[in-house]
């Protein structure tokens, strides 16, 4: 145990080093999206909107976004606008095999104005936007963001004397304008030195001083609105540290070690697996905590946050069941699906939005929200674990039912327990949702698609549990239903927001990834059919 804490402590220390020279710019407070955030987050989000990534050709977003403003014409012919929708590319008469385009190619194109009109017409009809129009909307947003940043209207750096709308760069008072110019000069010197591979020790310090000078001048305008240093530095740290990335790396390491334990029966390695798992879990928790500190709320309000939370829950449940049953393969399934969840969250920022966003009004009574969302999503974690175990069960059935009878029994026990845990959280979670709805809207149940699909998932697992008691399904049936019934959870969790796109829970709605999720579900269903057929064949023969 001592060793574990040592590893953890050194790990945390190595990342909480103070900002190095030249980094002060990252900490510059910016007002954007209804909150104050560090310039680091602002620039990452803006580059993400335009380019789809948080770095451009290895250069940091902080640098790229600043140069958009300082010399927009230099970016005119650079391919920085990501367009992925083929229909939009077709409508723009642009090559479909290309993904990045320059501003000239897109917005100099006369078809862009036509498409904007088309989008406007669609908006006026107030119909739901299909993926084509959503992609068009993104294109318009990319155009808007780049234009506004270039014009200095997007970057709001100075608190106002009155009210709460901050002043953008384009409208700065002379006092701050002077400091801002000094800052941009130091910035240009610094990146110039970096580009020429010269020593940056002096330019970095100059830049930091210039940033500090600007911050002081901005603070002087309205000191009361400029006090965010705690959350700002936490956010910069969160951006650079990627706690969830480290978490899945450790989960994956734990998974590898567990595989060795499992396949080679090397019990001695078990301790190492536990250490990796614990480190991953602590990092997962830590990242969750940092988000909570920055936003001052439990981070379970969008898909990204629930994916992170579910991964956390999977590891928790797997560890508890492992401690009780010592089956090993519960942990194998747990680490695998948790790592899988976090990897998806990390690699699909366009679908799962990792940015920190303020809450919709209806969610602001966060006491009930927090409890009902956390309870429901933690049940998904248990079902996800059952799903992972179901996959392992299928492998055993493929490798021979007779030979692995004991293992299959263990898998089914794990599935069964996970489903029970899931039901024990999901049913009260749905009821809490009802209480919350009654409390804020005055009705307990309104057949809203999100709540209805949570209910359908619950009914699905209840049907499985009752069918098992009735003797309608046995071991193989449990393995199959663990996989199939999870499709209902995917529908409730992802599908309602991204496929159905209707109802009161519209604050979590998004677009994208449907084809991948469908493929994932379809692949598993095909696998189940395949194994069932093989098994049926074996039984006959």
């Amino acid at each position, binding site marked *: 145990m001592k060793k574990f804490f040592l590893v953890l402590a050194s790990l945390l220390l190595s990342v909480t080093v103070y900002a190095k020279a030249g980094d002060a710019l990252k900490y510059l407070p910016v*007002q*954007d*999206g*209804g*909150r*104050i955030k560090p310039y680091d987050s602002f620039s990452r989000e803006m580059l993400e909107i335009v380019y789809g990534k948080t770095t451009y050709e290895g250069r940091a977003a902080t640098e790229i976004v600043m140069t958009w403003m300082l010399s927009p014409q230099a970016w005119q012919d650079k391919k920085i606008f990501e367009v992925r929708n083929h229909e939009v590319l077709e409508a723009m008469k642009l090559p479909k095999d290309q993904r990045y385009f320059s501003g000239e190619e897109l917005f100099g194109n006369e078809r862009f104005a036509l498409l904007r009109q088309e989008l406007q017409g669609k908006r006026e*009809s*107030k*119909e*739901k936007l299909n993926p084509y129009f959503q992609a068009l909307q993104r294109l318009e947003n990319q155009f808007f963001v780049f234009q506004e940043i270039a014009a200095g209207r997007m970057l*709001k750096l100075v608190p106002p004397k009155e009210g*709460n*709308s*901050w002043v953008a760069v384009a409208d700065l008072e002379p006092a701050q304008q002077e400091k801002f110019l000094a800052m941009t000069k130091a910035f240009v010197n610094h990146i110039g030195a970096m580009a020429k591979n010269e020593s940056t020790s002096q330019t970095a310090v100059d830049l930091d001083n210039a940033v500090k000078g600007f911050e002081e001048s901005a603070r002087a305008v309205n000191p009361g609105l400029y006090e965010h240093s705690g959350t700002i530095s936490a956010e910069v740290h969160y951006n650079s540290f990627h706690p969830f990335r480290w978490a899945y790396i450790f989960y994956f390491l734990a998974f590898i070690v567990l595989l060795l334990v499992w396949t080679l029966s090397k019990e001695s390695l078990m301790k190492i697996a536990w250490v990796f798992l614990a480190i991953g879990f602590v990092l997962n928790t830590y990242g969750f905590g940092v988000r909570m500190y920055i936003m001052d709320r439990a981070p379970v309000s969008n898909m990204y946050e629930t994916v992170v939370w579910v991964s956390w829950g999977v590891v928790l449940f797997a560890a508890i069941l492992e401690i009780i049953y010592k089956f090993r393969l519960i942990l194998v399934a747990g680490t695998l699906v948790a790592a899988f969840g976090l990897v998806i969250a990390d690699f699909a920022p366009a679908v799962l939005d990792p940015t920190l966003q*303020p809450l919709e*009004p*209806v969610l*602001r*009574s966060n006491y009930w929200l927090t409890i009902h969302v956390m309870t429901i999503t933690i049940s998904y974690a248990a079902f996800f674990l059952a799903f992972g175990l179901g996959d392992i069960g299928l492998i055993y059935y493929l490798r021979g039912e007779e030979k692995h009878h004991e293992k299959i029994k263990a898998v089914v026990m794990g599935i069964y327990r996970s489903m*029970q*845990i899931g*039901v*024990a959280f999901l*049913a*009260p979670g749905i*009821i809490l949702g*009802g*209480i919350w709805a*009654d*409390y*804020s*809207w*005055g*009705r*307990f*149940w*309104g*057949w*809203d*698609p999100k709540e*209805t*699909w949570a*209910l*359908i998932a619950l*009914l*699905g697992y*209840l*049907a499985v549990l*009752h*069918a098992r*008691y*009735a*003797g*309608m399904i046995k071991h193989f049936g449990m393995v199959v239903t663990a996989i199939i019934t999870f499709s*209902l959870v995917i529908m409730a969790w992802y599908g*309602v927001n991204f*496929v*159905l796109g*209707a*109802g009161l829970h519209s604050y979590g709605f998004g677009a994208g990834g449907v084809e991948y999720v469908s493929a994932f579900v379809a692949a598993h269903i095909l696998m189940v059919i395949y194994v069932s057929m093989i098994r049926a064949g074996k039984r006959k023969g």
Partner: protein
Amino acid sequence: MDNTSVPKKSLLKRLNKPLASLKLAVFIIVALAAITAVGTIVEAKYDAYAAKKLVYDTWFMYAVMGLLVINLTAVMLDRWPWRKRHAAFVLAHIGIIILLAGAWLTMEYGLDGSMRVGIGETNNLVQVAQTDLVVYSSFDGDRYSKTLEQEVDFFKKPPTVEHPFIVPALSGEIRIVDYQKYVIPSRKVVADESGKGGAGLRFQLQNANVNVIEWLVQRKPDTVATHNFGPAQIHLGPAPEKGREANEIFLTPSKEGLRYVVFQKDSDKPLKKGVVKEGDVFDPGYKMSLQFRVLRYLPTALEEWDLKPAERPSPMTTSAIKILFEGKEHWVLLNDMTKLFTNNAVYLLTYGNRRVDLGFPLKLKNFEVSRYQGTMRAMAYQSVVEVPDSGEHLISMNEPLKYKGLTIYQASFQEEQGKPVASIFSVNQDPGRFLKYLGSLVLSLGIVLLMWFKHLDFRIASKSQKENGN
């Protein structure tokens, strides 16, 4: 089911057995899941109302629910007498029954409506989902009496030419021959052949900065129809003798054409007078040098709806019914009315959501929206309302007002040009609330206990089934 101590089961239990079957339970659960899944797809494709009408509020949904209650009751009866280990199972199942009983009470006796109150205004009517058809009749065109009020559900039972909905009238009958779920309406004015309607005027107001084209139609002759165009008001109808200290233009139908009178803010004397006909232009004489053009003038006009059918609902669509009366067709939109004239009677037909009287006026004294810093995104909003005998209350997002057995919630608000103009409340009375909370509590308790006792009861159940040779 305790087959060691009670060797022979009573007749009741044997009859009860098939109803208590686990297989039936699985069937019910799967059926419920399937039906509700279809419901959500209907909702995504159309809207919540369609889902309710086509899926959730149907005989098959109620049948499955009824079967569920029977199955739950039967299975608990089957396990009688209950033991300690049955606690979880009994609680979970009784909890569901209590919940459903609460839901039934709400459905049958509850009130769930919405209410719009403008800032500074008072309202006492709550709009609910049921739709009514109301007909008022008048023989002198002045005093009306209600001759029909009936709940109709055209969504589920749409009238057709073959099976019209018939409203008897003094002479002949009013036939409702069509129903359109989703139409995009636009206003259309036509000449009224019966000669009993008010006048209609289509005008254009134009200068370098403005260009307004509007229809004005009088509801009946000698009433005033008004268009408010910011700096001035345009009225179609009789003009007063003196100005009212406002920029106003009155156009009065007369035999020689349209007589116009222009009044100005700082004088009660007319600024200008004259007569215009269709196609004429005049300058009202204001400083902003406007041109007033009479595009179309109909001495007797009727407003009608031009309807464009839509495949699915959107915020622009509404529903409409088609009326056939004395050989003429009229479309009536939801929450709108139409007047039907005969030689000796006038009928006023309204079709719309029922409005329930609260029994007290609710005044919206103030409304506030707070927004996330530097954006137009609403962060929270709240209303200050006043009700009799109880004074002022603050209603905010999750803080409803409880008054005279009703609960009034802040639901949303209406905005015009970035400023809130009205607050929308949802008003409800829920006699099933206590049962729903009780049922939730009992059910949750049961589920937690189920974890505690693991699966004792079921294990025994399946064992006994095996022993019975099922």
